[in-house]
């Protein structure tokens, strides 16, 4: 598509101007404020209109007003365009008023075709969008080069081109790419945090929610505890109430008890009053008697009792006296019945008889014992077969000789033992000698063996070598050893023989002595001296017994003499143990009687003495009583009667006293009962209580007041306890209530947190959805668009690079551009190309993008607003050359204020349209003729022309 002609009625500072454009390069030259930009905007406004399809925006309105002609009425213009397929259109737009108008005519037919396209508000007609598929925005982004844009590229920044390309593919603009957008989305997602993050707003909110929920839970638990406490409080209050009721009942019962007590009190008081009357009467009846101290009465009573007691005792004593006297008489009689006379029993030596008796008995025993021993000895000797004549021999030999014989016998036994021992010794030495002999023989044998071993074969000789030392030793020792042994043996045998000889000699001597001894002993009929000694001892004993018996006979005689008087006294003739026993018995009996008589006499005298005392005491009592009775006017001489009278008098006085005492007691009791109050007051109290207990007057089985008071105390105590419990519970409840957090506040906080969390989660979800969708779409788009774009670029590449490069490959993932060298047939990355080629590629890229975004195959004119303003001269020239090449296929509009650009183009011999704009002046188009530089002809240029 090319722009053919432009007629501006009025647009900004431009008015009534007409331009005819070159199909290739058009240079619009003019200083600042000459209307270059206005011209560009005019073209764009005529192409696309001012307003877009949607509701007019304020920026559009501002734009509309901004280019309203300064000094002219008409606001609009006409633009003729020609498509690549030859169709021509004329676009007329009027921007006057609020509603601009647009009309489009097909030039070839002259028909208006506006209605064939969508028309919107304020003159919007979707004409060019439909024709080439480009919106104004995309057109401006791709086909319009801003000031200095072509100088953006740096020497080493080929990547920038790739990125630029990707940004355009991704967003249709040069500022944002999908990658950048994804990074931003990812960053936004990360900033929110994930479910596992431990920082970030989501994590913090989650913490807040958890904390608040924990507080809610805590509050719930506390509320539950409080509810339980409330129930307990209610329960306690109920219990306290029932206890209070009980207390009231008990108090009522207590009052009833009081009432009853007071009633009882009144009754008792009345009884006491009656009794007092009775006492008064009685007291009046009793005549006042002389006052007899009670002590006198007690004395009289005591005396009378004592008198009575004495008399009784006296009587007992008399009876006892009589009894004692009777006993005395009897005892005397019994004593007289015994053989000795009375005087005998007064003797001091009566006990001597008992001594005599004991002596006689001992003696008799002893004699009997001796006799028995003698008989036993005699019998034993007879049993032993000892002839009686042996005794005389024994008497002749004497005891010492017998002992000597025994000693001798013992000596001989010792000697024999000694000789036997020596013989045993000899035998033992013989045995030792035998062992020694065997050892010596053995040594000699070994020596012999070793001596002859040298004559044995060689293999044994080697064994011998190892034993040579032993052999030598043995050989050395054998001979002296043998000699020494022989000497020893000779000596030993000799000594043994000598010894044995001595022993034999000794044995003979011993034998002789033993024979002598045996002869001596045989005289006595014994074999051993020991036996002889025993027999001698027995005989000695026998003799001793005889001698002793003899001595006792004498003593016995003396004793008999001593006993005889006694026999006579007791009239016995014979002396025997029985007699003596009989005498002893009578003697004891007599002594007993004697003592008894003495005791009786003593008792009798004692009793008589006591009787005398008692009589004296009775006399005293009599006197005393007389005195007392006289004082009481009761004396008649008859003590019993007098005492009776005395007591009666005393009784009367006592009665009077008792009555008086009772009277006093009753009065005191009255006062005590009333307790300081009068009976009238008591009556008043009873009346007051009557109304309170009227309901329960019928109750008769009340427990005692003390019990009730105790119960009341118990109930009060229980109630107080419960009240204390209640108070403590109440305090606990108060404390818990004070700690109870505000539920509504917590719930509100939680709701806000939840809402914020939902919001964040929603945002995160949306970000994730955006990320995933964008990522997917980017991948798909890149995959699909990269070849398409490469194809478009490829169409112009060969021409632009003079066929040095022919094909373009674009990596869908990274949008890296590689071009294939025509000759080398290699793919060269963009960064490896020369800077100039990179510039060409950039320009081509922009152009291709325009093509890419349009829906038609028509080339799109490019607008360059001083793109090389910051470039140096060389760069400018290079770029101008590229532009000139591009101008072969695309219509270019180059806006500049730089004269050097024009000069350069002229210098290059370029074919271009120069449009000079002067500020506020009408411009005439100029054509620059072809110069010295001839551009190679090409078909496109030719067709255009």
């Amino acid at each position, binding site marked *: 598509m090319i722009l053919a002609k432009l007629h501006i009625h009025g647009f900004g500072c431009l008015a009534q101007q007409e331009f005819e454009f070159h199909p290739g390069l058009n240079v619009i030259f003019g200083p600042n404020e000459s209307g270059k930009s206005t011209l560009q905007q005019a073209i764009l406004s005529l192409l696309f209109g001012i307003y877009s399809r949607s509701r007019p925006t304020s920026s559009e309105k501002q734009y509309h007003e901004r280019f309203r002609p300064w000094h002219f009425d008409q606001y609009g213009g006409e633009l003729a365009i020609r498509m690549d397929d030859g169709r021509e259109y004329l676009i007329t737009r009027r921007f006057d008023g609020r509603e601009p108008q647009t009309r489009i005519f097909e030039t070839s037919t002259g028909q208006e075709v506006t209605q064939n396209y969508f028309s919107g508000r304020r003159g919007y007609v979707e004409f060019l969008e439909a024709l080439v598929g480009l919106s104004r925005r995309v057109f401006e982004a791709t086909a319009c080069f801003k000031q200095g844009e072509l100088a953006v590229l740096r020497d080493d920044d080929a990547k920038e081109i790739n990125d630029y390309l990707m940004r355009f593919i*991704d967003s249709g603009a040069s500022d944002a790419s999908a990658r950048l957008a994804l990074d931003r989305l990812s960053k936004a997602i990360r900033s929110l945090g994930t479910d596992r993050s431990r920082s970030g707003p989501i994590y913090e909110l989650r913490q807040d929610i958890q904390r608040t929920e924990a507080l809610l839970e805590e509050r719930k638990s506390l509320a539950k505890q409080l509810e339980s406490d409330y129930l307990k409080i*209610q329960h306690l209050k109920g219990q306290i109430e029932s206890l209070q009721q009980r207390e009231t009942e008990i108090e009522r019962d207590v009052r009833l008890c009081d009432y009853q007590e007071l009633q009882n009190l009144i009754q008792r008081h009345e009884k006491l009053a009656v009794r007092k009357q009775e006492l008064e009467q009685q007291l009046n009846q009793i005549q006042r008697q002389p006052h007899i101290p009670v002590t006198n009465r007690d004395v009289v009573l005591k005396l009378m009792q004592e008198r009575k007691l004495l008399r009784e005792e006296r009587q007992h004593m008399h009876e006892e006296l009589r009894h004692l006297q009777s006993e005395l008489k009897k005892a005397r009689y019994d004593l007289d019945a015994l053989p000795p006379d009375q005087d005998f029993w007064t003797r001091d030596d009566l006990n001597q008889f008992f001594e005599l008796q004991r002596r006689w008995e001992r003696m008799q025993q002893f004699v009997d014992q001796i006799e028995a021993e003698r008989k036993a000895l005699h019998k034993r000797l007879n049993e032993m077969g000892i002839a009686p004549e042996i005794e005389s021999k024994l008497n002749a030999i004497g005891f010492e000789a017998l002992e000597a014989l025994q000693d001798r016998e013992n000596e001989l036994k010792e000697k024999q033992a000694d000789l036997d021992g020596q013989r045993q010794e000899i035998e033992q030495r013989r045995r030792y000698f035998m062992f020694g002999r065997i050892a010596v023989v053995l040594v000699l044998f070994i020596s012999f063996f070793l001596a002859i071993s040298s004559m044995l074969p060689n293999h044994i000789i080697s064994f011998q070598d190892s034993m040579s030392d032993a052999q030598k030793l043995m050989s050395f020792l054998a001979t002296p050893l043998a000699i020494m042994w022989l000497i020893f043996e000779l000596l030993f045998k000799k000594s043994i023989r000598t010894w044995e000889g001595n022993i034999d000699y000794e044995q003979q001597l011993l034998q002789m002595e033993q024979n002598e001894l045996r002869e001596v002993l045989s005289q006595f009929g014994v074999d051993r001296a020991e036996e002889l000694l025993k027999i001698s001892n027995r005989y000695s004993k026998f003799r001793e017994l005889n001698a002793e018996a003899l001595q006792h006979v004498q003593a016995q005689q003396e004793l008999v003499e001593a006993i005889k008087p006694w026999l006579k006294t007791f009239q016995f003739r014979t002396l025997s143990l029985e007699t003596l026993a009989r005498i002893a018995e009578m003697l004891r009996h007599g002594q007993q009687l004697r003592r008894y008589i003495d005791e009786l006499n003593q008792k009798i005298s004692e009793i008589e003495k006591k009787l005398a005392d008692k009589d004296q005491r009775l006399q005293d009592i009599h006197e005393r009583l007389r005195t007392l009775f006289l004082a009481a006017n009761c004396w008649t001489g008859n003590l019993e009667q007098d005492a009776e009278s005395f007591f009666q008098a005393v009784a009367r006085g006592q009665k009077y006293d008792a009555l008086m005492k009772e009277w006093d007691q009753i009065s005191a009791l009255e006062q005590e009962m009333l307790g300081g109050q009068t009976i009238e007051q008591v009556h008043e109290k009873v009346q007051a209580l009557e109304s309170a207990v009227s309901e329960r007057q019928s109750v008769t089985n009340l427990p005692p007041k003390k019990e009730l008071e105790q119960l009341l105390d118990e109930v009060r105590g229980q109630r107080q306890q419960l009240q204390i419990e209640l108070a403590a519970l109440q305090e606990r409840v108060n404390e818990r209530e004070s700690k109870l957090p505000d539920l509504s506040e917590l719930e*509100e906080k939680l709701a806000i947190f939840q809402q914020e969390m939902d919001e964040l989660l929603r945002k995160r979800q949306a970000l994730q959805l955006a990320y995933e969708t964008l990522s997917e779409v980017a991948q798909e788009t890149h995959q699909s668009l990269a070849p398409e774009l490469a194809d478009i670029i490829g169409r112009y590449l060969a021409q632009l690079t003079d066929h040095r490069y022919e094909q373009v490959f674009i990596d869908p993932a990274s949008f890296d551009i590689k071009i294939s060298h025509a000759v080398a047939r290699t793919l060269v990355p963009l960064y490896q190309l020369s800077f100039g080629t990179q510039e060409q590629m950039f320009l081509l890229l922009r152009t291709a993008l325009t093509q890419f975004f349009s829906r038609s195959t028509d080339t799109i004119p490019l607008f360059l607003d001083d793109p090389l303003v910051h470039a140096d001269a060389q760069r400018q020239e290079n770029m101008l050359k590229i532009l000139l090449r591009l101008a072969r296929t695309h219509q270019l509009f180059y806006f500049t204020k730089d004269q050097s650009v024009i000069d350069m183009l002229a210098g290059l011999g370029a074919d271009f349209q120069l449009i000079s704009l002067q500020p506020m002046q009408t411009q005439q188009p100029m054509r620059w003729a072809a110069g010295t530089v001839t551009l190679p002809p090409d078909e496109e240029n030719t067709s255009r022309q």
Partner: protein
Amino acid sequence: MKLLHFSDLHLDSPFASSTLPPKIAQGCRLRLRRTLAKILDLAVEYEVDAVTIGGDLFEGDRVSKDTIHFLLESFSQVAPIPILIAPGNHDYYNPVSPYARYEWPDNVYIFTEYRPRPVTLMNDVLIWGVANTLPNCRDNPLTDFRAHPEGTQHVLLLHGSEMGHFDASRGEYAPFHLKDLEQAGIQVALLGHYHGGRVIENNGTVAVYPGSPQPLSFGESGKHTAVLLDWQETKPNITMIPLATQAFITLDFKPEPITNTHSLAESIISTISTRATEANFLRVNLIGEEPESLNLQLGLLETHLSQYFDYVTIHNRMRKADIKLAQLDKKTVRGRFASRLKHMLEEEPEDSALIEMALKFGLAAFEEETILNP
């Protein structure tokens, strides 16, 4: 005889559902207390014979000691005017309820059974009160009930759901029908439970829902009153006295082509014709197509509106301008991205909010360094 009836004051109520910040919510709760004081002042001013409370006087599970003491003091100050309370499903009666635990003033009578029990107010007027004893009483408390004696004016005091004239989605609490009142011989029913005030008449029976004295959340519509009943003969004159001094305003706003946040805010403000005297809480849902020219600054908008309202919450439900999307070239990744999400919108309309947001973020990612507003 004159009665002043109110219900559903909900002292110590939470405002979590409206996501009011705690401090503002606390202010609302204090406002409820002032409302009670105002009601009691009205009772004194109109020299009523009794004040009846149709339940939900407070939130039983969270009412504070301070609030209870406030009630005790407030009620005692209007003595000897009797105050009859029929506990509702939020302040239901049980042994641990504040109704049971505290010593209420002598002029306060609290019904305690889930069946009509009578209190004689004047010679020929009986108030039959029913107490909710559970948080969810589902049986009809008027089953087999007949008010007696005949010839007396019978007034029912009940916190329950009238089934027939209201939205059933609120749930049935102590449900009953109007005909039950008629059959029971009740001439006037002083009710509570529904927060929108309303008077229903049917065959001579009048049922009065005063509504909650203050609105308690966004979405509560209807009247918020206390009701004055003045018996002249057999039928009372009913006057609904508005009490609400706070308002929960929900506004679905579709912005016109606006270029700046200030204009948007002013446009919103001018749309709201009525406001409450003490506090206004605003919820704005921005709907429709996002103006192309508008660079929406939500934070700025909220701040601006906060100068006129006590609480503002804004939900941006605007969708991206189609034309803006159309301007995106379909050949670009951006254009295709927008097309794909648009297609997704058509296929999954239930996820439209999420997809719109994704579209917004995706497009923003191409233009802005920071996508998420701080």
